[in-house]
């Protein structure tokens, strides 16, 4: 990746994410998160009144980060990253992560990108942004 090849509004490659009960289990085990809304369907629907198992917000944050790290590879590193979980998503959904370049600073070699996770209805469930510094 060369800075001179990048332009504002260039899209980042999009990725589909369809977590399963197994991948959610593995994720929650790896981050030591025993919150029942992420694996116990009976509790989640009957007690907390969610329509289904909740996909972890920080996992969606990871997908946003991966959008950037997969795109940049070894050409640079992420120096700032933020996201917020605006709408709950549930097991069984396929979500799409992506983004676009919003600014390029030639002097600092920093590129700012806007990121999103969208549901099948096209609603942004987790917006985010990141700053990448190219080598």
């Amino acid at each position, binding site marked *: 990746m060369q800075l001179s090849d990048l332009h504002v509004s260039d899209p980042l490659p999009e990725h589909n994410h369809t977590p399963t009960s197994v*991948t959610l289990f*593995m*994720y929650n*085990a*790896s*981050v*030591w*998160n*025993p*919150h*029942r*809304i992420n694996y*116990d369907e009976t*509790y989640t629907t009957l*007690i*907390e009144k969610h329509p289904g198992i*909740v996909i*972890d*917000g*920080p*996992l969606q*944050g*990871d*997908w946003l*980060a*991966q959008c950037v*790290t*997969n795109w940049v*590879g*070894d050409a640079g*590193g*992420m*120096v*700032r*990253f*933020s*996201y*917020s*979980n605006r709408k*709950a998503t549930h097991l069984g959904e396929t979500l799409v992560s992506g983004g676009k370049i919003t600014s390029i600073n030639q002097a600092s070699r920093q590129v700012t990108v806007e990121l999103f996770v969208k549901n099948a209805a096209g609603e942004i469930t*987790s917006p985010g942004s990141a700053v990448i510094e190219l080598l």
Partner: protein
Amino acid sequence: MSTLLTDEHKAWIGHEAPPVQVEVSRRDIVKYAIATEQVLPKYLNGGEAPPMFIFNLFGSLKQVSEIRHDGLPRGSGGGPKLPLQRVMAGGTELILLCPIKPGDRLTGVQRIVDIFEKQGSQGPLIFTVQSLRVTNADGETVLEEIQTAIAR
């Protein structure tokens, strides 16, 4: 105009938890990389941690007897017991100063930055905002994080 939060809750703003020390293992990075379906070799071989590996890395490790009905450890948020108990992650802001690698001995200090209430479309929400500062064995700052949890 707060109706659920008392002065006792608000008194937690500024509270700093005792430092938590973590030694990062290659195996834990690999587990995280597999679980999150990373594709870059540096993450899959555990040579470097993906940025969001930090999530809950400094979270409290409580005994099973201290786990609440919802599965979360009592006091896991590091703040007061809130009048709303159904908690979800709200978001994160990260400043990444250097990558986390296996063998790193990290120290994390969490601080409650704010606790406030908002009216959501389905009722009141309480936001707890915490900062996390992570330093390495040389005392250098590795990353800074602001994380928000939402109770409904």
